[in-house]
């Protein structure tokens, strides 16, 4: 069973069709790269998956569970919407770290809030509470080590370089162990010299139980890290395939034209 199934997703802003029937499946542990020109709908697709936008039509199914269905008459309450959201994580182009919290607190905040709500629902002893909070804290430290920011644990976001901020944001997105972790052009806001450290972290995250979708303009990264690549153009998936299929054997004219463009025009 695929971890993620997207069926016939449509999204319109005002009068512009941004997504015109996107369907794909993703197996657990796979890395999917989405490439395409600006305005092709890549970011909107990620935002629909993360419920920052509501698709007009289509279905989203995670591990067999339908988390979005435009045909369903059922209106989700906030609790359900939240549960559905937690299947996905999103790393933003502009990091969006919380400036008033240390790096460590940025990572633990959401998990702590979830935990504290649980306490309200069922009584917990102080002992249990302490254990739960220290587990959250330890998990954050583990994630910080994973993204190589252990020494920045108590720094504030403004004290970090762009690359460090993005790595912290990745650790934050991982803290709630989403089924599918999405990256929205994670290196586009970075100086060229800083993209490497972030891409390396993403590459190292690849493991059998972590599924990732990366919207990117870094063709080398897509080629080397992604198991599969989707080329989007004008709101539809033009080509889907592995690196060899996309970069060497494609007969799709739009894709070939896109790949020939110099990077700054992408």
């Amino acid at each position, binding site marked *: 069973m695929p971890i993620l199934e997207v069926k016939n997703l449509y999204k319109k802003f005002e009068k512009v069709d941004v997504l015109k029937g996107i369907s794909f499946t993703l197996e657990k542990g796979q890395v999917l790269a989405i490439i395409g020109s600006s305005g092709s709908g890549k970011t909107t697709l990620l935002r629909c998956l993360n419920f920052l936008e509501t698709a007009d039509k289509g279905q989203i199914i995670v591990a067999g569970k339908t988390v979005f269905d435009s045909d369903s008459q059922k209106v989700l309450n906030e609790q359900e919407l939240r549960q559905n959201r*937690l299947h*996905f994580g999103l790393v*933003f182009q502009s990091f*969006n770290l919380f400036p*008033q919290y240390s790096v460590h607190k940025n990572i633990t905040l*959401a998990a702590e*809030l979830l935990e504290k709500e649980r306490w309200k629902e069922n009584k917990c002893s102080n002992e249990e509470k302490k254990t739960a909070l220290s587990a959250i804290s330890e998990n954050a430290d583990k994630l910080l080590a994973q993204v190589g920011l252990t020494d920045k644990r108590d720094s504030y*976001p403004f004290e970090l370089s762009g690359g460090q901020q993005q790595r912290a944001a990745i650790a934050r997105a991982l803290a*709630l162990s989403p089924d599918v972790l999405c990256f929205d052009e994670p290196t586009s806001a970075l100086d060229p010299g800083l993209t490497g450290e972030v891409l390396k972290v993403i590459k190292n995250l690849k493991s059998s139980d972590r599924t990732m979708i990366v919207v990117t303009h870094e063709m080398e990264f897509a080629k080397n890290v992604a198991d599969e690549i989707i080329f989007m153009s004008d709101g539809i998936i033009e080509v889907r395939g592995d690196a060899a299929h996309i970069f060497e054997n494609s007969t799709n004219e739009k894709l070939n034209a896109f790949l020939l463009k110099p990077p700054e025009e992408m």
Partner: protein
Amino acid sequence: MSFMEVTLQLLDGFKTTLLIFGVTLVFALPFGLVITFGSMSKFTPLRWLTRTIVWIIRGTPLMLQIIVVFFGPGLILGMQAFPRLTAVLVAFVINYSAYFSEIYRGGIESIPQGQFEAGQVLGMKKPQIFFHVILLQVIKRIVPPMGNEIITLVKDTSLARVIAVTELVKAAQDIVGLKAIIWPIFYIGAFYLLFSGILTLIFGYVEKRLNYFRG
């Protein structure tokens, strides 16, 4: 009248000034936030209603509002609704809530959308996002305009004398009228200066405390 006697009598008026100042802050600070939520509501009728009220409050003199709160109920219902001081407090709280609400709104709207979205994708509820992510950033941004408004409040308290509430200015005027000495009216300037000086120091301290982060 000796300097000491004048000072004591003025201090009596100053107590009322402090009371108006304190009560207005205590109620208008949170009440302003409620108005902000109204004027930012996605429910259009509520938004328009709130914005109309804010327009009326900001569009008319506070002095007039004090008069309306004090005399209005008597004219309409034939009964006096509030004692003088209460009428002043009601008018001040309404007026300052409206001004504060606009400062809050400016602060909230200046926070990048990405901060709200980051909270959302981490599964936070709206109130959690507001209180744990947005609020402190808003406070940091609005300290200077709030400082301005609160110092204005110090001096606006003198409007209470329009319905014969003896605050600092009226206390001085009473002395001037009764004793035929003019200097007490100049002397009260020192009270206001001292008061706003202390407030300026407090705002400076708050700003400094919030300097530990940027954004």
